[in-house]
Structure formats: structure tokens, C-alpha cells
């Protein structure tokens, strides 16, 4: 068995679903964000793997990965700012306690 594309895809699928699990089950906004990061990383693995095995002629996959990393950074920046602002007012970062409005 030689190392091939599907190996990476399986890891990516598992990582994605772990991230999803985190997103679905965590109460802490930051923890949910970490789950989202895992999901994005899974997508990145896909992109890089496909770039090598499917379309090695151009580097679109890797460029996409860079963009995703950038977006992840921006999301973390903005998202954590919102978390901090909410924490200042509510003294909690548990999303089910941030619940003035009907959920």
C-alpha cells in the first residue's frame, strides 16, 4: 500500500467531523471557535492533497489554503473580539448563557 490521495482525505474527513463535533457540543464560544478551526484545517488538508494528486500543474489549491488560513485568522480576530465584548457585559462566554433573545 503506497501513500495516496485517499489517505489524506480520510484524515481530513475525521478531522472535519471532530471539529463539527466540537462545534455541536461545546458551550464555550471559544471552544466552538476551536472546532471551526479544525474544520478549516480539514479543508486545507483536502486542498493541499488535491493540489498534489489531482491538479499539480497549478498551485491554486495551495493558494486557496493560504487564503483559508488568512480567513481563519481574521475570523479569530473578529470572533474573539465579540467574545471579549460579551464577556465584559455578561461575565460569561458560554453561549447557552448568552441568551437574552430566544435562541
Amino acid at each position, binding site marked *: 500500500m503506497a501513500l495516496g490521495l485517499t489517505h489524506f482525505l480520510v484524515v481530513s474527513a475525521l478531522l472535519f467531523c471532530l471539529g463539527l463535533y466540537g462545534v455541536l457540543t461545546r458551550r464555550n464560544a471559544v471552544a466552538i471557535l476551536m472546532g471551526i478551526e479544525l474544520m478549516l484545517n480539514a479543508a486545507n488538508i483536502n486542498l493541499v492533497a488535491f493540489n498534489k494528486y489531482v491538479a499539480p500543474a497549478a498551485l491554486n489549491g495551495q493558494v486557496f489554503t493560504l487564503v483559508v*488560513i*488568512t480567513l481563519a*485568522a*481574521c475570523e479569530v*480576530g473578529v470572533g*474573539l*473580539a465579540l467574545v471579549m465584548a460579551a464577556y*465584559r457585559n455578561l461575565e460569561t462566554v458560554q453561549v447557552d448563557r448568552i441568551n437574552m433573545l430566544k435562541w
Partner: protein
Amino acid sequence: MLLLDWLYVAAFAVIGLLLAALSLAIVWVLSPRSAYPQKRMTYESGVVPIGQAWAQFNIRYYLFGLVFVIFAVEVIYLYPWAIVFRQLGKFAFFEMLIFLVVLLLGLAYAWRKGALEWT
């Protein structure tokens, strides 16, 4: 073979961690132990710790972290540009000029709005 390079990197990482852990293990074997409970208390200037080890720290830590993340991302775009802009001519320079001017504006904003002040 490119992967060979990274085999060395991996080896360095693993060995580094192992050696450091080894030193700790040696100490763990050699060092004296006492069951003197005060020693294992948190050291806070000799005063008995009260409450949790936490205070509502300044949001400024976050602001610095934020600006850092944004500019760290910016820097990653500089690296590939830096190695090829020579070949790509003046277009590449102007592209980067726009990119950097936009981010300098961001820096100016952060500066002017006091996100870079500690006090």
C-alpha cells in the same frame, strides 16, 4: 530528495523533546523529595493565596494579540512576493504597494484609536 530535509527536522524535534524530557527524568530520579505540603502551595510572595489565580486582566493584551495576528498574516504574503518580485517587474511592485498601503492604513487606524497604547 526534499523529504529528507524534513526527516531531519522531525528528528530534531523528537530528539529535542526527548533530551529535554530525559533531563527532567534524571532530575526526577536524583532529586530529593519531601512531603512538606507548604512547598507545593502556589507561591505568591509568601502570602497564602486567596481566591483563584485570576484577575480581570486588561483587554489590551487581546488588542496586541489581534494586531499581531493581522500583521503576521500580512507578512506571510510578503515572503512569496519577496522571492519573485524581481522577475515579475513593476506590476508586482505596485500590487504589493497597494497591499501594504492598505495595511499601513490599518496600522494608522490602530495607532490613532489607541489600540497600540499600553496605558
